[in-house]
C-alpha cells in the first residue's frame, strides 16, 4: 500500500487569549492518501478550520502548534518560514470560504493567477496569460480568454470561487485544502464547484482536504470522513460506513439533526442538548460526555482513545454504537406532517 500523502500526528494547537488558554485542536491524527478526498466535519468551535490552517503554520503568533505534520515524508512544522512559503501554493494550496474578499479588487483575474505562476514556476509575459487562460478553462469558466482580463467585481460568486480554485491548482499542488468552499454559494452553484473539485482530482491527481459542516456535501464528494468535536478527532471512516454504521453518539446526533423526510416521519428533529464547549486543556474524560445520553462514569473520568470500533473504523468512545443501532430507518415516505 502506498504511504499516505499527508500524515498528521498528534497535532495540537493552543491559543493564548486574553481570557486564558484555548485548546483549539487536541492531538489530532489522521492521514490523507494521494488523490483522496478527505472531509473534516464538525460544527463551529470543533477546531476543523484551525487544523487546516495549522498544517502550514498559517496561524497568528498567539498560537502554539505541537505535534507533527508530514507531506510525502517531509516534516512541515519544522521548516523555516521561507521554506514553508515554497510549500504553500506549490505543494499545498488553499481555497477559503469567501470568494468576495479573497480576490484583490484592483487586479485582473489573469494577473492574480499570474502572481502564483510567476512566484512558483517562474513564468513570464505571454506564457503567464496563456497558462492562466488554460487554468480558467480547467475550472469550467466559459470564455476563459475574455475572463482572464476581467476584474473580480465583474464575476459572480460562483465564478470567483472557480478563479480561487484556478489559482490554487496553478502549480499542480499535491494537496488542495478547501475550507467551506461552497458555504457562501447558492445550492445550484455549489453543485458546479463540487464537480470542479471532483474533476480536478482526476485531471491533476491531487488530494483534497475538505473542511465542511454540510453533511450533504460530504455525502456527495468525500471518500473518507473525519469527525471532530471540541478539538478532538472522534471518528474516522469511509463515507458510506460513516453514514450507515457510525459509532460515535455525536456523529449520530449530527446525522439525526439534519431534516431528512425519510427519517423524521414521527415529527421532530433530534436535538443535541447543551453546547459545544470551549476547551482550555485536555481533560481525562470524553469531551462529549455531558451531552451524551449514554455516558457513564467511565466516560466522565477516563479519556477514550481513538480505536477500532464495532464496525471496524476508528471511534473515540467507550460505548460506541453497534452497527445495528446506528442504522437510521430509511423508509421513504411522507414528512412529519
Amino acid at each position, binding site marked *: 500500500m502506498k504511504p499516505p500523502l499527508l500524515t498528521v500526528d498528534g497535532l495540537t494547537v493552543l491559543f493564548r487569549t486574553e481570557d486564558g488558554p484555548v485548546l483549539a485542536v487536541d492531538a489530532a491524527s489522521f492521514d490523507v492518501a494521494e488523490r483522496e478526498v478527505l472531509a473534516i466535519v464538525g*460544527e463551529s468551535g470543533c477546531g476543523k478550520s484551525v487544523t487546516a490552517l495549522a498544517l502550514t503554520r498559517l496561524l497568528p503568533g498567539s498560537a502554539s502548534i505541537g505535534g507533527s505534520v508530514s507531506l510525502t515524508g517531509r516534516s512541515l512544522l519544522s521548516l523555516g518560514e521561507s521554506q514553508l512559503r515554497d510549500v504553500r501554493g506549490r505543494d499545498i494550496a488553499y481555497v477559503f470560504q469567501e470568494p468576495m474578499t479573497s480576490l484583490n479588487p484592483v487586479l485582473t483575474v489573469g494577473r492574480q493567477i499570474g502572481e502564483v505562476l510567476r512566484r512558483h514556476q517562474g513564468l513570464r509575459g505571454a506564457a503567464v496569460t496563456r497558462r492562466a487562460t488554460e487554468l480558467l478553462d480547467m475550472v469550467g469558466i466559459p470564455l476563459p480568454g475574455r475572463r482572464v482580463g476581467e476584474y473580480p467585481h465583474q464575476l459572480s460568486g460562483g465564478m470567483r470561487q472557480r478563479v480561487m480554485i484556478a489559482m490554487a491548482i496553478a502549480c499542480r499542488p499535491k494537496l488542495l485544502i478547501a475550507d467551506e468552499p461552497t458555504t457562501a454559494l447558492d445550492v445550484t452553484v*455549489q453543485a458546479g464547484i463540487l464537480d470542479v473539485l471532483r474533476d480536478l482530482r482526476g485531471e491533476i491527481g491531487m488530494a483534497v482536504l475538505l473542511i465542511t459542516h454540510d453533511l450533504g456535501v*460530504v455525502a456527495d464528494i468525500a471518500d473518507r470522513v473525519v469527525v471532530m468535536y471540541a478539538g478532538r478527532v472522534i471518528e474516522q471512516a469511509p463515507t458510506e460506513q460513516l453514514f450507515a454504521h457510525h459509532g460515535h453518539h455525536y456523529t449520530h446526533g449530527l446525522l439525526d439533526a439534519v431534516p431528512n423526510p425519510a427519517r423524521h416521519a414521527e415529527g421532530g428533529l433530534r436535538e443535541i442538548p447543551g453546547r459545544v464547549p470551549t476547551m482550555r486543556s485536555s481533560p481525562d474524560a470524553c469531551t462529549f460526555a455531558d451531552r451524551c445520553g449514554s455516558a457513564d462514569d467511565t466516560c466522565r473520568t477516563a479519556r477514550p482513545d481513538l480505536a477500532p470500533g464495532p464496525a471496524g473504523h476508528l471511534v473515540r468512545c467507550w460505548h460506541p454504537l453497534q452497527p445495528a443501532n446506528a442504522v437510521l430507518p430509511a423508509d421513504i415516505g411522507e414528512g412529519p406532517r
Partner: protein
Amino acid sequence: MTLALEVVDLVKHFGPVRAVDGVSLTVAPGEVLGLVGESGSGKSTLGRCVVRLLPVSAGTVRVNGRDIAGLSRRRLRPLRRDFNIVFQDPASSLNPRMTVGDIIREPLRLHRIGTATTRRRRVDELLDQVGLQTDVGRRYPHELSGGQRQRVSLARALSAGPTLLVADEPTSALDVSVQAAVLNLIGRLQADLGFACLFVTHDLAAVEFLAQRVAVMYLGVLVEIAARSNLFSAPRHPYTQALLSAAPIPDPLLQRRRRRVVLTGEIPSPVNPPSGCRFHPRCPVAVPECARTVPPLRPVGPARELVACHLVHDDGSGPRLA
C-alpha cells in the same frame, strides 16, 4: 375565511434593480408557506415588504384582510401588533444594550398592552415557551449563544400575539444541531399558538420539515407553488427540478446514484432580467416561445397547483429533467 396574508402583484424596485417583479401569493390562517429561492430571487425583499419594513413600489399586501401596503406609517403602527418578523443573523438581531427581558417586552410596551406586572409575567411565559429559563431575562445578548438568541428573537416577535410571522432565514446562521432545535421550536410554537408563517429560506430540507405549501422564486417572480409533498416528490417547473436536484442529500448511496440536472450559466442580474420566461437562458428544455412571452403563473393538475412554465400542460404533466 380571511386569509392571514394575501399578496397581489407585489412589485419592489430599488432603482433599476427589480427585486420583486409582480408576485402574488396567499397564506391561510395557521399555515406555513415556505418561500424558497437562491440569491437574487427577491425572497428576502418580499418578506420585508410583507411586514412593511420596506415601502412597496406597487401592489397590495393584505394582512387579515387589511391592506397595509398603502397606509401611512402612523396608521400602520398600531396594526403592527398583528404581524412581525425574525431575522437570520443572531449577532445583529438583538440590541446589545438591552436585556433579554426588555427586548421581549418591547412590543408590549410599544403597543401599550397590559400593565407592568402583566408584562413581566408575559415575558416569563414567553421565555418558557421558547425553551429558555426565566433568569435569562436579566442577561444581555452577548451572553447568549446563537441558538439562544434566535429563541429570544422568536419570543420578541410573538410577544404581542401576531397572526402572521415572517421568518427570514431564521436558521441559516446556526450550526446543524442548533438548527434542529430552532426548527423544532418554530414547529411547536406554530402548532400551539396557531400563527401563520411565511418561512423564507434557501434551505430545502428545513422547508420540507416545516411547511405545508412551498413557493419557489426566481429572479423576482414566482415559478411554482404547490403542496409540500407534491413539490418535493414531483416538481413541475424546470428550475424547481434543478434546485431540488442540486441540493445534496446527506446519504452517500442515494446522493451518488442520483442523476443531476446541471444548469448552465449563473443567475443573471436583476437589473436586466431575460425576456419572456426569466429562466429560459439556463433552462435545459427551453423552446423559442420561452424567450418570447412571459409564462403566467396558472393552476394545473388535479390539485390546481400553480406553475409558470409554457411546457407544463393543464393536466399537470410536463418536462422531466432527470
